[in-house]
């Protein structure tokens, strides 16, 4: 039985966690927190799947290698790469020189990713985090758009996106170690 992590299934789960018929008022805050967190994970796993294809190829025989490599990606590495994509200085400058000028859709994807990751961190750990169903649904829409954008960039074989995917595996840490 296949138990692959699929970003579209995660998005479906996020929507299930934000039901309209949840009784008077709203779904429980705990549900909305999980919905926001799950929407972020949908984007994270979409990027990881695409990065493993960039690393190992899309051959059906390479599935085991892709699944193994998928476990090496971290939220922290992606966050730092995302910051490097949109800022300057230090390791970011080194990574940016490898990445080149990002496609405008990649820049938007990075902004969406960073915003969703920030929401996920607060949803998971901040006791004062507050969100209504409307806002949670809007963030789920963002996650869906991020996934669609990633797929379009992959289909178009955009150069900056292909380099971004390959840089996802700890590139900023490597740049910091080698360039200092």
């Amino acid at each position, binding site marked *: 039985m296949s138990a692959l992590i699929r970003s579209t299934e995660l998005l479906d789960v996020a929507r299930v966690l934000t039901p*309209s018929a949840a009784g008077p008022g709203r779904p*429980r*805050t705990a549900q909305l927190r999980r919905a926001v967190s799950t929407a972020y994970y949908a984007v994270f796993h979409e990027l990881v799947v695409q990065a493993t294809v960039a690393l190992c190829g899309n051959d059906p025989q390479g599935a085991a290698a892709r699944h193994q490599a998928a476990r090496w990606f971290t*939220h*922290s590495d992606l*966050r*730092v790469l995302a*910051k490097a994509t949109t*800022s300057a200085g230090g390791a970011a400058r080194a990574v940016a020189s490898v990445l080149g000028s990002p496609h405008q859709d990649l820049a*938007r994807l990075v*902004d969406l990713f*960073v*915003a969703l990751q*920030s*929401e996920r*961190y607060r949803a998971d750990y901040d*006791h*004062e985090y*507050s*969100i*209504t*169903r*409307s*806002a949670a*649904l*809007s*963030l789920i*829409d*963002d996650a869906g*758009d991020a996934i669609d954008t990633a797929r379009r960039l992959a289909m178009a074989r955009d150069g900056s996106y292909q380099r971004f995917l390959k840089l996802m595996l700890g590139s900023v840490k490597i740049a910091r170690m080698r360039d200092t």
Partner: protein
Amino acid sequence: MAVVTREDEALEALQERMRGARSGEVEVLDVRLDHDLDEEMDEYVRITLVLSDPPPGRETWPLVSVQDLTRRTYVAADGLEIKSRLVVTRRTREDYEEPGWGEQ
């Protein structure tokens, strides 16, 4: 007495610029600024656009409107030469009228 920096002034100007902005049927009612730390303990400024209720019959705001307002916020921040790392998000008015922890 707290020292007001040029960055503080620019962030305040950004608030003023985006307050009342519209995209389609969605209006920015208020703009909240919060200085926060990410998981690496790096500081960022969270800009929360407090939006009018979703259009009648819709459960949330149209994606195109939300993304337009978000993009305009980043563009305005660039124009104001804001140096802080920004994260733009959105909330309803209701989010700021909620009971506190333990009151739900």
